């Protein structure tokens, strides 16, 4: 479902020459002119577009601007594609009214790939009102963008604002996941480091209990271990073990 949003996209992809050119089409203020048009025109298929809008006559006057070839290759075929895409959009919105390519009338194309257009009902010269055309375009905006491999930023309908995609918010914020991983690792580290000397001490105690030879360096030497290593002074020893009474 496309939600409406009145937010104007400001910057356009200027700095990359590879991006398709900015293409701007201006939607005519049809609703206010319906009466005038009905008065002006008989039911003919041919329209004189310059009567449709009161824009100022802005022609290219500066002579030192070069290049009349647009970066986006605009041609009659592209225009045909546009009309077809818009006819599709109208058909899709009105559920079956058989709009054709001939029902879309562009006019006042400028060098800048920017033009006005009007939409008529199929097989008649009745103009479709602006509101309906706007809703149709909003519904099929992605398809129209896709037909030209452009985006909301590079293909602008004046007055129709693109909808804002809500930022994707996952259920668990990703930062909590990373935080959990780091805290887990840190906890394991702390426990390991704190337990290590205790474990070492326990192992050493077991080792001590097993062999008593480690007492060799300390304490007084007993007869079994090594007291006989030295020279035995027999001056004060008796031949008999027990003292004579």
């Amino acid at each position, binding site marked *: 479902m496309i*939600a409406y*949003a*009145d*937010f104007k996209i*400001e*910057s*356009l992809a*200027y*700095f990359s*020459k590879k991006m398709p*050119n*900015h293409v*701007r089409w201006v939607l005519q203020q049809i609703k206010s002119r319906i009466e005038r048009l009905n008065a002006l025109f008989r039911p003919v298929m041919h329209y004189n577009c310059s009567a449709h809008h009161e824009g100022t006559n*802005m*022609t*290219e*006057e*500066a002579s*030192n*601007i*070069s*290049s*009349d*070839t*647009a*970066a*986006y290759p605009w041609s009659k075929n592209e225009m045909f594609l546009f009309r077809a895409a818009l006819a599709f959009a109208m058909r899709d919105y009105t559920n079956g009214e058989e709009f054709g390519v001939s029902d879309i009338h562009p006019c006042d194309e*400028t*060098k*800048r*790939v*920017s033009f006005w257009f009007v939409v008529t009902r199929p097989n008649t010269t009745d103009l479709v009102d602006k509101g309906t055309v706007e809703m149709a375009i909003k519904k099929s905006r992605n398809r129209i963008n896709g037909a030209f491999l452009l985006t909301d930023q590079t293909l602008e309908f004046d007055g129709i604002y693109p909808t*804002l995609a*809500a*930022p994707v918010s996952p259920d668990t914020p*990703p*930062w*909590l*996941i*990373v*935080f959990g991983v*780091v*805290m887990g690792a*840190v*906890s394991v*580290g*702390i426990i390991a*480091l*704190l337990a290590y000397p205790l474990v070492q001490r326990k192992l050493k105690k077991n080792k001590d209990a097993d062999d008593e030879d480690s007492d060799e*360096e*300390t304490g007084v030497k007993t007869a079994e271990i090594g007291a006989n290593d030295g020279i035995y002074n027999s001056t004060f020893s008796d031949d008999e073990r027990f003292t004579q009474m």
Partner: protein
Amino acid sequence: MKLKLPNPGLDDRIPSHEDLERMETEEAGDRPKWDNKAQYLLTCVGFCVGLGNVWRFPYLCQSHGGGAFMIPFLILLVLEGIPLLHLEFAIGQRLRKGSVGVWRAINPYLTGVGIASLLVSFLVGMYYNTIMAWIMWYLFNSFQDPLPWSQCPLNANSTGLVAECARSTTVDYFWYRETLNTSAAIDDAGGLQWWMVLALFAAWTLLYVCCIRGIETSGKAVYITSTLPYLVLTIFLIRGLTLKGSTQGIKYLFTPDVDELMNPQTWLDAGAQVFYSFSLAFGGLISFSSYNSVHNNCEQDAVLISIINGCTSVYSATVIYSIIGFRATQKFDECQGDNILHLINAFDYPENSITIDNYDQVLTNLNQTNPDIIQGLPLKTCDMQNLLSQGVEGTGLAFIVFTEAIIKMPVSPLWAVLFFIMLFCLGLSTMFGNIEGVVVPLQDLRILPQTWPKEVFTGLTCLISFALGLIFTLRSGNYWLALFDNFAGSIPLLVIGFCEMFSVIYIYGIDRFNKDIEFMVGHKPNIFWQATWRVISPLIMIFILIFYFVTQVTKDLTYLVWDEEAANFPVLEARPYPSWIYVIIFILAGIPSLAIPIFALFKFFQRKCCKDKSYKDHPVDTISAKIEMNGKAKF
């Protein structure tokens, strides 16, 4: 100048050269030791090279005349930084104690210097680790595409972007609102921000696990934390140089403006930067060097580490400014592109008829032919110089300017992760030194029972710092941090540094010190060291201290707030501090500095009133006292 203050009983308090030789060969077990020289050097380099090298030095360089700033920086590095560093290394290696132990050994009245170091290390560690928490928060948030600071959230009824974000930028919004949730004034405390508390907890526990047994554990960690930043800086340099506009940034950084050398502020800033960048007076370097073997060549180490520190500053400045240049070029192109679009739309020119190169020309033409139309268009002036000089120091650099540059690069999450890992490693290795500067004096002071294992001391330090550091997780936390940064980490350090130098040269005695170095290293320190230790460095320190003090006291104390209702939003507004802040400032800056005289007085009175108990100071020297009964008996 052979001034030497009387210092009775010095020989009884310090190990003699023979004792040192004996300790060297016997390897008395209870003092930790470095596994190898590389570990020691990496730890010291890590302590010295910190966030300041990345986000303070480039700004100073650029704002004080670019390439010309190198001159005062290098001069003061040689005259101030290296001598002080050598002094700290030598005294630590000679007396083989942490900061409190060293100063107490030189003279018990000087214990206050060690205590001041302890307090400063504690206060600085508190707020420095909060910056680490911020870095970790950004790091945790970098593991997603698109990065959360590249988009504005939608407002309540999904009709548009949140107003605060739309008026400023996505990166500003993410920093001030989603990270800090900052309030509009320092009085407005707000509540604890739970995500910030979690991040702070993560920072302290990670620090704890690395420092849990002092250099036994942190010595292993520095192999990564000290080397990884260089790797990442190189990667960023290569990446940066391939981006458009990077050379502009580097040019802007290094373009010399020799007039700045006449400005005394330049020299003051250079001196302060050298002093703080070397992490002197924290006590950590004295501790680290005390674990060395006695005949370690501390002179060589001091010179080596100073050179590495200086080169790292210049290198990281180059990298930072290549990325800044890229960002400025991008913003300039966008701004100019908007203007060109307005023109093309207004006059219906074909695409690419106006480019950045001929924009000015076309504009002047059109202004002459159709001035009324031009007036009606919302054209902005795009100023490259302004973009290059935007807010590029401190947290603003890392969390606003650089993050903005990152989202414009392809594969942004990778660069974000790399950048924040680098900042994290830089900060963590500095925190190792800070913790060392707190834990070892705490053990030496014997306030807590000696039998408690080191893990408990480290744990207590981390726990108390975390608890007190919760103030920085309030909504006004950012303002508190700026306060701490300005006052706790500035004047006290200068005072301690000067006292250290004075104590070693004039109370310990330069002659004795020379002999010690000759004993340890093999040759007497040459005339350069004599001149700098005795005269040049202390004078420089006094100058910097006085000027710093004067500038701090005379200027109006204001702080920058992020206030949506301010007139110039999103530019930060300067607001004066409330009056009770002066008490806090006095606590932060005054108490560590005043600890030195206060403790001297305390010791003096203690001596005076307890004169009859003075026999405790002179233990009887007997043979039986020398026998050790712990399994290594010598019968």
